[in-house]
């Protein structure tokens, strides 16, 4: 499978914005390092989405570079702003929360996702696997797992594949994939194309995706 030229898909910020639209008041949400951390900045103020950092915090509202307090960070080491009702706890309690099914949504970055919902996001063959962090725990433990990533890699190779070639983070765990080109639901019957980015056609998306995409009867453009 070969790519068919560069498309003007969503920026990282717009991917984060689109993911933020999946979140509702009262949901407990963990954001992985990298692109996913941007999501907290796209939730409306006072929206009361409860962000969890696996380093031991609940109820932060966004990233803030002002007044760095080394003791008030998210799992990416970034300084965070606390919202009303925030709380702190240790790593044992934090991962009990994650692994016990108390996180409504986890948003993680991805290297590859298979049509069965397998996720590979921690091991790059050219660099080895030098960091797992909480990805395997979040992938297994969250009630709903959203992967936010670019649709293809730098060489234009599809990241959405029949089988993951890279070592897995967890199998059969991904619920939704949001990329610069599309929003795709992982269903027991396979992948369902729900939305395409502005100026991107369903055919463009399929060309850059290894497995077959069924088209949702309600297929539409993303509203951003």
């Amino acid at each position: 499978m070969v790519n068919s030229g560069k498309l003007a898909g969503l920026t990282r910020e717009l991917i984060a914005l689109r993911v933020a639209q999946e979140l509702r008041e009262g949901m407990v949400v963990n954001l992985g390092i990298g692109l996913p951390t941007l999501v907290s900045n796209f939730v409306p103020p006072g929206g009361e989405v409860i962000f969890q950092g696996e380093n031991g915090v609940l109820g932060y509202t966004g990233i803030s570079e002002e007044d760095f307090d080394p003791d008030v960070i998210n799992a990416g080491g970034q300084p965070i702003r606390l919202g009303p009702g925030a709380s702190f706890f240790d790593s044992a309690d934090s991962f009990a929360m994650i692994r016990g099914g108390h996180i409504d949504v986890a948003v993680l970055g991805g290297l590859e996702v298979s049509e069965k919902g397998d996720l590979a996001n921690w091991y790059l063959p050219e660099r080895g696997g030098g960091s797992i962090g909480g990805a395997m725990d979040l992938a297994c433990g969250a009630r709903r797992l959203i992967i936010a990533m670019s649709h293809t890699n730098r060489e234009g190779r599809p990241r959405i594949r029949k089988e993951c070639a890279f070592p897995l983070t967890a199998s059969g765990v991904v619920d939704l994939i949001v990329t610069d080109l599309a929003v795709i639901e992982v269903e027991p019957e396979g992948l369902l194309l729900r939305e395409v980015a502005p100026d991107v056609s369903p055919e463009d998306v399929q060309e850059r995706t290894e497995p077959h995409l069924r088209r949702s009867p309600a297929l539409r453009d993303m509203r951003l």
Partner: protein
Amino acid sequence: MIDKVVATPGEALRDVQDGATIMFGGFVSAGTPSNLILALQRRGTKRITGIANNIGLGDKLDVLCEKRQLAKFIATFAIRASGGRQSLFEQLYRRDEVELELVPQGTFVERIRSGGAGLGGVLTRTGLGTMAQDGKQTLTVDGTEFLLEKPLRADFAFIKAWKADRMGNLVYRRTGRNFNPVMATAADVVIAEVEEIASVEELDPERIGTPGVYVDRVVQCEPVAVRWDG
């Protein structure tokens, strides 16, 4: 009168021998016992097995690679996924001069808790069907498959808290908790670096994150600035 306060980090580390297994609390900038790590560097202790969440991400633990004090590291983050500037740890690792055991973070903390709580291990689904399963026993309980994860313990735990009293009671601040309270339960000798020594009456019994019974030595230090640069 119980008094666990010692004067200097060097004195706190007086019996840390070559070949020791040491847990280090902290999550990058929060709750990292950087003064104890720097004292360990000065001490020159060799063939250390280190157990910590992260190494080589701008944190102070990387200094232990300057003179190859580390033989092995058990961690969840050790090498930047994105490339960029190499940490000293990564350089040693690429030359096969240090061993790395990478553990999913939830499994990491649960193994340490098991070590501290006298459990023989726990059953988890994290890591099933991945490289994290390699060499581990699986068990089917009531029709569901699990990995058996075994306890982790250490000779020493170096931890960091906000305040302590002479009895070793510790109060943490915000996300400075992370692995510190759990590691304090799972080592033979627990040494706490704190920003402030308070009187026993000052600390609120409701706010104590690690009861003094877990802590052997307390040393007050100016906190060292650390920041993730990954």
